[in-house]
Each structure stands twice: as C-alpha cells, then as structure tokens.
C-alpha cells in the first residue's frame, strides 16, 4: 500500500494526475498479463475483497470479479435488494458487515451519490467506487483514458467530446475530471436541459451541435440514453434524439474524417449509436471492455498489493 496518494478510489476529482498516470501505466502492464495463455498472477493472494452491488450491473461487476480473480484474491459477492436501498437502509449495516467479515477491500456500486465517501469514513477496508448514483464512476473513466492512450499514444492535447445525457451520467463527471487532469480538452454535447447547471465551472465547453462537435473532436465518448427517459417529457422521441444527437452511420459518413468512437455500454443500438458505427473500424468499444479488466487489476494492485518496487 502507499503506492497512491489516497487510500481509497472514491472519484477522480480528488485523484492527482500523477496517480492517474500510474494507474494507466500499470494497466498496460496487466493488459500484457491478459494476453498470456495463463491469465493469473498471485499478487493479491490472501486478500479478501467484497463486491457490494446495491444496483444492477452486469459488466462492471463481471469486470471487477475477473480482475480480482486474476490477481488471486478471495472474492465475495453481495447484492442488496432494491427495496432496502429505496428505504434508505443498508449503509450502516454494510459498514458493520464489512468490519465483521474483516474485508481488505470493498468495491461498491450504489444508486445514491456520496455513499462510497461515507463508507470510506467508517471502515478500515479500502473502498473502490464502482459507481455512486449520478456522481462518479472513476474506474470507467480510467479505462476510457487507457483506451484513448492505447489508440493515440497520448492524452495531452487531445480533443474529447462526451455526448448524451450528461445530467444523469456518472461516467461524464469522472471523465471530465480525469481527462482534464491529463491535459485533454473536453466538450459536452447533449440536449441543453440535460447539461447540468454550472458544469462550465469545471473547465469544459458545451456545444449542442453534434456536427460541429464531430468536426472538432478526436474521439467521441457516446453515453447510453436511458430508455426510461424517452417519451416521458424529457427526451421527446427516439427519432428526434437520433436526428439531433445520434451517432449515425450517415452522419459519420458525411464528415469523412477519422474519429474514434467510444461507448461505456450497455448500448442502445439504433438510439444513441448505430449498430454499424458500434461495430465499425472507428469504434474501440470492445478494447474498452478488455482494458476495463486490466485497469481494475491495476487499481486493485496499487491499492492493495505489495509496496512499490516489488514485482507483481
């Protein structure tokens, strides 16, 4: 421990650039491990990790579980019922359970912003935020940055656009903090009422014209549009969203430029992104998935592993 400034990974807002750099670099080291025939290393043998999921998640949970197992940690999975969360129960009991089970690390996904920070104040275990409501999703942003770095060889000076429902996105906020710390420029694009108030104070630009944004950007990070927001007076219709913000094949063809397409998943094919774009040459969406496992190994290793300098 002690390889990073902070004991926990709560968000990228308070993670220094130096640590982001280190996490990404170490991510590439583990990426090599994942390309080996035997994809397992003994780095975290004897460490106890609990995955606490208070909200449905498939890919983040599986990605963490894979990362933990490939580091030889002992893994416990815990999923809480939605009803206990909706009543506001659970946090205190969670704290006490982690104490009682003598866990070294808790990976937590929770629908309420701030819960990972609250948890970290009450437990000895290392807390890793796997998404807290509409606040942050730091491991997603780290894997996004690692994927950009893999593609471009750098982050500094790149122009990255985040497209979609920014207001309800934890992915956007973590990407904004991380990318800017690493020297990239960030523009947000989406329906104006889904751009949160005061976001410009974080140093980003806002442009609601997707075609201008495509012309500007080196890469687009396309956010999932929640279907439950469609047609309930927030996003009027799929066709209008596609028409003004959708990353369609036709739109990309019109621009005739090299641009990298990213998506944190799960995708609504045909809504925010066309299937042919998602599966096309410009997309690095599956690299993001693989890098997700590598970056989570990196995070776990740097927060829980042996001191710096020792071999993994």
């Amino acid at each position, binding site marked *: 421990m002690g390889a990073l400034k902070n004991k926990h990974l709560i968000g990228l807002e308070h993670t220094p650039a130096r640590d982001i750099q280190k996490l990404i670099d170490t991510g590439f080291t583990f990426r090599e491990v994942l390309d080996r025939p035997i994809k397992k290393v003994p780095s975290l043998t004897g460490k106890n990790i609990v995955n606490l999921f208070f909200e449905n998640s498939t890919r983040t949970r599986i990605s963490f579980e894979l990362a933990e197992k490939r580091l030889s940690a002992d893994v416990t999975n815990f999923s809480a019922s939605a009803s206990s969360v909706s009543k506001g129960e*659970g*946090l205190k009991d969670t704290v006490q359970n982690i104490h009682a089970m003598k866990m070294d690390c808790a990976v937590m996904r929770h629908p309420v912003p*701030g819960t990972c920070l609250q948890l970290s104040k009450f437990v000895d275990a290392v807390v890793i935020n796997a998404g807290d409501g509409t606040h942050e999703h730091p491991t997603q942003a780290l894997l996004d940055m690692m994927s950009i770095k893999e593609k471009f060889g750098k982050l500094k000076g790149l122009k990255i656009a985040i497209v979609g429902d920014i207001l309800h996105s*934890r992915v956007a*906020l973590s990407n904004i903090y991380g990318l800017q710390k690493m020297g990239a420029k960030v523009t947000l694009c989406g329906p104006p009422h889904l751009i*949160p*108030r*005061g976001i410009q*104070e*974080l140093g980003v630009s806002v442009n609601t014209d997707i075609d201008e944004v495509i012309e500007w950007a080196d890469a687009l990070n396309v956010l999932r549009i929640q279907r439950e927001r469609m047609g309930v007076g927030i996003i009027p219709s799929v066709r209008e969203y596609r028409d003004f913000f959708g990353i369609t094949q036709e739109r990309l063809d019109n621009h005739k430029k090299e641009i990298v397409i990213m998506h944190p998943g799960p995708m609504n094919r045909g809504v925010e992104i066309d299937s042919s774009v998602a599966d096309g040459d410009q997309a690095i969406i599956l690299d993001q998935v693989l890098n997700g496992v590598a970056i989570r190994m990196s995070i776990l290793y740097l927060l829980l592993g042996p001191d710096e300098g020792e071999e993994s």
Partner: protein
Amino acid sequence: MGKSINLIILEGGTIYDPYKNKKKAGSILIEDGVVKEVGKVITPDNAQKIDCTGKLIVPGLIDIHAHFREPGREDKETLATGARAAFSGGFTRVCVMPNTNPPLDSPEAIRFIIEKSADLPVKIFPIGAITFGQKGLELTEFGEMVKAGAVAISDDGLPVQNGQVLRNALEYAQKYGIPVINHAEDIHLRNDGVINESSLSTRLGLPGNPDISESVMVHRDLEIADYTGGTIHVPHVSTKRSVDLIRKYKKMGVNVTAEVTPHHIGLTENKLTEYDTSAKVAPPLRTELDRKALIKGLLDGTINCIATDHAPHTIEEKEMDFIHSPCGMIGLESAFGLSHTVLTESGASTERVVQWFTKGPADIMGWEIVPFQIGKPAEIAIIDSKQKWTFKESHIQSRSKNSPMLGMKFTGRVVGTISGKNTYGNLLD
C-alpha cells in the same frame, strides 16, 4: 431547570426593552417568579444576588417556527424536551408547527398541545394546519382552532400548491386576524433536489433544488396576498431572489412578513462538500450571494425576524445515505450564538439582534408585549454579548443531536433564562 426560587435580584446589568428600544442600567427583583421591582432597587438581605455586570437583561426570546414532533414522533422530540432546548437557548415563547402525526388540523389537536404544555417553562403556541391532513385541499376550522389557542396557520413543509386554496385561506384568515404561513416551494421545480442547484450539486452528482423553486412560489403568494389583502408570512427565506421580491411587495404595501433561519444566514452550501447529512435542510443551504442578501434583508427591514425551524431527527435517520436522510436540523440551542456572531460581524448591534428575536416575531403574531411588568411572571433572558464559546454536544438539550453547528465558534451567548419560577443557565446556578 425547574428549581424553585424565592427571591432573586438581577443586579449590575443593563436592562433593554427591544419593544420600545430603550436601555437603562438597573436591577430586577423577582419574587416567586413574579417581577416585583425594576430599576433602582434596594437589595433585600434574603435575596439571591445574580451579578449581571456587563450583561444585557432582555425579555425572553421568541421562536415562531419550531418542530416539537408531539404527537407522533416522540422519539425525536416532545413538547417537554423541545421546551427544555428552547429554554436553554433563551426562549420563553415558541410556536410549534402542525406537521405532527396526526397533524394539528383541528381544535382538538390544538387543545392537546395547549393542555400538554401548560406546565412547561416555555409558553407553547400551536400553529394550525391550513388544510385537513396538510393535503392542500380542504380548509380546516380556522376559527375553532384560533378559539382553542392557535396563533397562525400553515401546512408547514407541504406548500399549498393550489393557488385557489391559498387565496381562500388568505381571505378567510382575515376574519380571525391570523397570518397565513406558506412554505414557499414549487414542488415541480424542486423536482428531486436535495441541495442547492449549482456547480456544487453538479460536482457532487446530487439532484439540485434551484433557487427559483422558492422565488416562483414567493412571487405567486405575494400576488395573491396583494389581490386579497390577506396577511402572508414567508418562512425560512433562503434566496436573494425571494428577498428582492419581498422587498418590492413590502414597498407596494402588501401585508407580508418574513423570517430567516440562523443557518441560512450562518452557513452556505459549502457545508455539504462531503455529503454531511446534518446540513441537509429544506430549503437547502444556498450560496454566499444568497447568504449576504438575507443579512441585508434583515438589516434593511425586508425580513422581520429570525426563526429557528428547529427540526429534530434521530441519529438513525441522519445516518442514512444523503438522498434518504430527512431534511432538517435542530437550532434552538445555537440560534442566538450563531445569529449574534454573524450579524454583529455584519454591523448590527446586539440590541438589534435581540429585536429580531423578540419584537420581530411578536409583531408578526400581533402580540403586544410589555416586558418586565411589575406583578407579572418574569420572562427574561440574560445575554453576555462578548462571551466566546464553542458549540458542543453538551450544550444540546433537545432529544435529537442533528446539528451541523457542532464545533462552530460563536461570540455572544444567552447565559441565563427565567420564566416564572423556572431558571436556566450558569449564571443562575
């Protein structure tokens, strides 16, 4: 508290009457809880002497906005524990809000409060609901509730959304001479907001409650008050926009009064950067711009008084996550210290601060108070305007401990309270 006194004399202090704004050096002699002599008093040999040198002797403070949770949530507060908290903070009169369980929406419920609180050191004045069950639909029996002892009407935390219902209330309440208090918030604009909407809510990923959710409702209420001639009281004003609107309508001659809480003039949204649920409150803590506008509103008379919105909650509830934890903080014990600190730093005198806790609320309720009257039960607070102190859990007398003020440093403190035969405070021990 509750210790019986026979003969006590407050000597060496300055007696201040905020109702007439008159100050003079002098003593007060109290026999069996009744004021016997005021001014130049020859100290009787058998009197307990209280040295008030350097202190200000003022009438008991008044809070027109508190939640004592009885009936229904006696685990958070009762009339007795709430009164104890108030008394320790210098208050001798408190108005309690009707959002109990069941709500105070009938003369029977009002009488329950009056009877249950008859022997407490603090006089309790119930506020009745505007509508049955605080549902915002059918008017309650204003007249019967006033006869039973209600002093105002309010649906408290549940704003009257239907403009016609508020219009009816503002017209009908004029017959009984009571103010209508409407928690000003457009619940649609509030949406799911749990803290002030700003770059901070964006950073924290918490749903924001914009300042316009308050000012839009304040504006509507002021228009209806203007049209009907009714008397509207705006509780816990939190935004600059609302202060500006109230100022404008006051100048037009509309019957509007307003209160501000100690926490809205003393704290901002920056208290919430680490999701501290003890600072989660409705309306939410706002920005520095708003805080300054609220202070200016007090100083120029736009806002009439300070009221605590004392809102006790259990530890278990405040230990929940930020979204599910309830809104509200206790305030009676820290009210004077925090307000005095903030307002004297802004140029107000101690006397002015005392007025916002006495004359201000009394005028809103239409009470004519003549303090220190010979032959009447004593209602007195003793203030040390220079004492520096740190607000600690040991100062809390409420049954609940939910206060973001813990650890704050204050200048100015109530060092003693007297209400009839009851006394509280180090000075009087």
